[in-house]
């Protein structure tokens, strides 16, 4: 599997639906369709030729004419602060992708999606693809965030039947709590591949919950981001 060359993306739309993040809609030249779960690299170049590049998961379905990235703004993030604070519609960015053949759903087999915070983004691409192909029956979804207002794509996830766990506020009758095996067990079905995405701490604990439940480690695919918990 080769990854294509750098290409140009024009920012067709830019929104800030939740705090400390930005949603970019990109018109990518010479685009190759992605698999839900894959990511793109964005490269910024300064006047003196200095470059910085970071990877961001795609939130859109392959059938979407644009590539949607959802970027969490990190205070010391060289690329994310630019995208969140400076970039505007009409600007062009250098991008490369899609990348990654592991954390990618084939669209045809059952999957259990477990995401924390902005880790839900690649899972949203999977949900959107399932909706577009009328195969939402294949997906079971559990997501976690501090509050509902901080959960990216909360409406779409709830509409897709996601179990939503909030750690800092009550959700319905459920008091604030972390994700547990009790949340995941009802979602577990024969033949599933699990896709776990989130901060390093979240991904570690969620993947260990699955393995502890009896999920085969080889069927658990993990994507982590951010610093180590240590």
């Amino acid at each position, binding site marked *: 599997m080769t990854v294509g060359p750098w290409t140009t993306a024009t920012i067709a739309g830019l929104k800030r639906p939740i705090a400390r993040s930005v949603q970019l809609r990109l018109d990518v030249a010479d685009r190759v369709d992605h698999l839900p779960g894959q990511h793109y690299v964005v490269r910024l170049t300064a006047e003196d030729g200095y470059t910085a590049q970071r990877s961001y998961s795609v939130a859109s379905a392959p059938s979407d004419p644009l590539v949607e990235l959802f970027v969490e703004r990190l205070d010391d993030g060289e690329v994310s602060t630019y995208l969140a604070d400076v970039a505007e519609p009409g600007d062009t960015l250098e991008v490369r992708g899609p990348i990654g053949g592991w954390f990618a759903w084939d669209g045809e087999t059952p999957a259990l999606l477990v995401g924390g915070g902005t880790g839900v983004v690649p899972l949203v691409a999977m949900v959107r693809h399932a909706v577009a192909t009328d195969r939402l029956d294949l997906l079971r979804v559990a997501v976690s965030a501090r509050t509902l207002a901080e959960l990216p794509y909360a409406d779409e996830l709830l509409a897709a039947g996601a179990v939503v766990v909030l750690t800092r506020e009550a959700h319905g009758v459920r008091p604030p709590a972390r994700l547990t095996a009790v949340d995941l067990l009802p979602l577990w079905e024969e033949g599933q591949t699990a896709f776990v995405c989130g901060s390093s701490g979240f991904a570690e604990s969620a993947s260990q919950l699955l393995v502890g439940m009896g999920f085969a480690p080889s069927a658990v695919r993990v994507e982590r981001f*951010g610093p180590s918990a*240590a």
Partner: protein
Amino acid sequence: MPGPTRGFLGRSRPARDPRLPPGQYDVGADWPVLTAEPTPRISPETWSITVAGKVENPTTWDWAGVHALPASEYRGDIHCVTTWSKFDTRFAGVSLDSLWDVARPTTEGAFVMATSKSGYTTNLPIEDLVGGKAWLVWEFDGQPLSIEHGGPVRLLVPHLYFWKSAKWVTKLDVLKRDQQGFWERNGYHDRGDPWRQQRYQGDA
């Protein structure tokens, strides 16, 4: 190269550290954890490393066995394909040369497939694993290597992107022909030289 990105200044860079390969940034004291599978549970008592394939003397060492080999240390930098680099790391273990001295790769052996307890694999040219360029390590900064960073024992090949430094390594298969490992099958480069930005399949 296309033109600059409108309005992008980047980090202040009075003097870019010459130890930083192109497209990388200094992650500082942090050490990000990146794994594609659940972290396995491995105790030193049950861990072992096997060198097999195109070798004259296939050999397995257990925890005590590798500790009986001459100690060796790496002090220097590491580079992850996700663009962070970490300076002045200190790892302790043994040079892979000590294992090769015993297992003795044949003249046919040109590539190595490293396999981890988790099932993770990565492929490397054998030239990158000889001559004091690669280690088996079990200590970082004087402390036992933690499980999330690949403990009890990981491969260390610091002159290549860090996905080549397989965590929880348990087997080195010497091969005549190159085969692709886990990330290599999924779009990442067969060699992964950070100074040439060999990140993805197709990069020169």
